[in-house]
């Protein structure tokens, strides 16, 4: 009986710790960083699906689909936050246009992933993930460097 009590206490503490995790970022840039961290966790979880010990292959596909839809939504959220970021004053005049272009491209790529997952086109997702990485890397290379 003692073991059951200890187990119950552990469960309650775990649930309370989860509630305490929520925090509210203030700026668009911070939100961008926070959603990026979420994306890393989602991508990591997608890589781990193959190790789910009891799930059937269809269950694993369902998990991949749900993860990809979540990822697509998060990518679109990042795009929205990016568009709110104040561009550094040292940047050239045409840069805001380019910045918006990348942000919009990111939104479209997130939308593509969401729709592919929704329609069970899971075999197309690997390419779509690579496209998102490409857009992110190009934008970071272009703007994070210039900011320095």
């Amino acid at each position: 009986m003692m073991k059951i009590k200890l187990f119950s206490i552990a469960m309650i503490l775990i649930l309370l710790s989860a509630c305490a995790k929520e925090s509210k970022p203030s700026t668009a840039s911070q939100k961008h960083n926070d959603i990026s961290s979420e994306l890393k966790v989602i991508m990591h979880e997608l890589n781990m699906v193959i190790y789910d010990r009891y799930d059937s292959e269809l269950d694993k596909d369902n998990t991949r689909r749900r993860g990809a839809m979540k990822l697509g939504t998060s990518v679109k959220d990042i795009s929205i936050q990016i568009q709110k970021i104040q561009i550094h004053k040292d940047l050239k005049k045409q840069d805001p246009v380019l910045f918006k272009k990348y942000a919009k491209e990111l939104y479209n790529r997130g939308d593509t992933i969401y729709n592919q997952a929704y329609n069970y086109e899971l075999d197309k997702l690997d390419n779509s993930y690579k496209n998102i990485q490409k857009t992110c890397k190009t934008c970071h290379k272009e703007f994070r460097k210039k900011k320095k």
Partner: protein
Amino acid sequence: MKHNLKNLLLPLILSFNLFASEQVTQSQEKSLELKTKDTILSVGGRIQLDSALSSPESAHSAKTIPIGAIVGEDGQSNFSAKNSRLWIKTKTPSEYGVVRALIETDFKGIQGSEAKSNGHGIRLRHAYFQVANWSIGQTNSAFNADTTLDILLTAINDTLVRQPLVRYQYETDSLSYALSFEQPETTLIDPYGEIIFPKDDVVPDIVNRIIYYPKWGQVALSVMGRYINQDHAKLSNGVDLNNKDSSYGYGANFSGKLHLFSLDDIRFAAHYGKGMGRYLAYDAYATGSISLDGEITLHKSFGGNIGYRHFWNPNLRTTIAYSYAGTKNNSDSIDNLEKVNKDVHSSQINLLWTPIKNSLVGIEYALAKRKVESGEEGETKIINMMIRYDF
């Protein structure tokens, strides 16, 4: 290695293609596919080599840990590839949405001799299809814990049942709800301490499950109702009872995972029920007991597990876990109490490494203890090693 496996399977698919006059492709990253105009058929599987060294010799199971004097060998080492798997799945568009079907097998069927060919019979794991929110066929019960520990040996309290079912599932971005009608099967302890199967089940087991997917993790609650029935059941001594009895059982299973800092997480499951029986710990505990008068008394059973998973780096991880399962038997009306399981608990720790994509190499240590109703106890220590590759 991945390409070699594909090369091995390619002639098989190509020969099928000659008959089907269809198109063979290797999809962008992973599975090998055969495409017709509408249907995509994929083939995949897993090669797995397990090696276990236990003292005394035992499986990590709530039913088989030796009690009292050592039974069998002490320190016997076993190798096995029977956990390897093979699956075929299809995907076809229809007016009701995508129809997806799966047949998945492993090789844990009839076992051959370890001295000669080590043959292992093929065994059905899953055979079902999904369309328009419905799943029909044999697959995991909706009562199973939704999140499981990242361990090599099974958790001692596992709630894992695969059985024929009809399930309706409704999904949103953050919720999943399922109502499932599943195969009933009653197990009762007779007055001689043996488990009997009355084979008088008439109503399917009914399971409601809800899963919530917040940003901080995932939690699931399953609730099950069962109708337990015996109609002139036969006891283990061959005597046929001349009456009927029935009762209603229930069970609840709460499981989940919580993301912590970095990639680490905590995983847990807790279950409780009356008449939950075979849904817990691989049928280690009976649904209830049956008296010489044919009267059914349902047993309460309970269990839980908790595990912390730490990533040393994205390819190297450790889980430390504890699991427990137990039951309250109606021991006043049962003889041979040394045959009747009371409770079991186990502690496990492992190190799992992913050297190349889709592979896993791991080592795990488990210390498990079992107790029976007569008060006797037994324990086993197991070192399990595993190498596997999913193709």
